[in-house]
């Protein structure tokens, strides 16, 4: 099938089979290899991208289903020369070790901060009316869809807390 995908503000034309996942289209066809394949089954979050501003697992979606959507990958968040604040904070807080989960963590964290700003409660929020502070427990729960094999979790949570504070 012939489709067009809008990724990080650039329109791409692609000829692909319907069974190609969004993750494989990004990595193998568009050579945007920042998004990683950890499990390919929605269980690890390494493939996290944003679709129209919402974080999703790109391994559990078909590329052909995303025409007219705006897709944001880690490449659209910052570059090595111009890191986003969140990326800078991952560096400063030691939010990674091997780095494999990091692109997914950062894209997911960016969306999670927005979700909290929009007032979405989480499973650990004391009341559903108001989530209160984005504390360690809230961050851990909101980021539970991103696993880190190196267990860099404390640094990841710190980097997110720091960014949320700077944002506020």
């Amino acid at each position: 099938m012939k489709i067009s995908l809008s990724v990080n503000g650039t329109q791409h034309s692609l000829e692909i089979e319907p069974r190609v996942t969004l993750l494989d289209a990004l990595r193998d066809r568009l050579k945007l290899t920042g998004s990683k394949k950890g499990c390919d089954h929605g269980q690890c979050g390494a493939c996290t991208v944003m679709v129209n501003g919402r974080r999703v697992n790109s391994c559990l979606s078909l590329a052909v289903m995303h025409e007219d959507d705006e897709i944001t990958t880690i490449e659209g968040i910052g570059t090595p020369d111009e890191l986003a604040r969140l990326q800078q904070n991952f560096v400063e807080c030691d939010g990674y070790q091997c780095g494999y989960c990091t692109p997914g963590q950062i894209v997911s964290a960016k969306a999670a901060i927005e979700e909290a700003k929009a007032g979405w409660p989480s499973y650990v929020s004391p009341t559903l009316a108001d989530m209160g502070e984005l504390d360690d427990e809230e961050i851990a729960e909101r980021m539970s869809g991103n696993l880190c094999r190196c267990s860099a979790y404390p640094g990841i949570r710190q980097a997110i807390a720091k960014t949320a504070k700077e944002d506020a």
Partner: protein
Amino acid sequence: MRPFDYTRATDLEDAAHHLSSGSTVIAGGTNLLDLMKIQVMTPDHLVDITRLPGLSDIEDTGSGLRIGTLVTNSDLAGDTRVRNGYPVLARALLAGASGQLRNKATTGGNFLQRTRCPYFYDTAMPCNKREPNSGCSAQGGDARMCAILGTSPECIAAHPSDMAVAMRALDAQVEVRGADGETRMMALDDLYHLPGDRPDREYALDKGEIIIAAHLPAPSPNTRQTYRKVRDRASYAFALVSVAAVIEMGEDGKIANAALAFGGIGTRPWRDPEVEKELIGSEPSNELFAKAADVLLRDAWLEESNAFKAPLAKRTLISALRDVTGLSGQDHYDMGDAA
């Protein structure tokens, strides 16, 4: 994944046409694609309903909410009407999956997600649900994620949804559109078949039928609601046991009304009127709650690897009821007594 044809439906008529000729619906795709990758599901043709207009809204009907089938789990959990009027549902949704998955998972897809029995996933092993008459590997095998209520000699697979458990406690109905364009309403309970001798027949949908919405009755402002989920890790795991409790207390301090539904232990989102009868009209007490749990578990089928679910369900139910009736603020209770 095996190759398949893909069509983006232009309207419901078009979707129904494709379904009648054997296509499979894809919505969020988070369950279907997962199963297609391991060839547990091998559809030849997918019809994508995600661009259909009018299926993504939550409307106030005057007598409750109508939730379009494409409303995502995160939009539903975030909706202020749901957070205020149906907190048990918001909590159940937030207890499910992850932030990423909830952004894709749809209401209809969540109802119709398939079991998490490990043998259903393993095409090298017998499974009556996946392949009729091949046998049930979970019995005598690893049944940790399997059901103890509503089981049959052919199948003990549990329904894995959190959302559907809360919807059961809230008396939700499902709006279904047939191939002929007619719509019908059914109680959520009627959507799910018990496994019996045909565990492969899971849902009461005819060929060409599509779920278009879920309906919730008007919220009862006097109810207290809670969703309690117990799982192998603190987040991002399916329920071993979950309890959705919707309780109304009378002015006399007695339980005036009770609706209880259970996840992780039933072959479908589980509700048992006998348990509710046990509670209604009585004053809350630990003994009463323990008795209600015994009623719930009276016909439980326990495998060696999931026998722990009986005491766990009992304790979880007692704990949820203590919270929701206010008992937990009044006395201390040692869960060890409930074994």
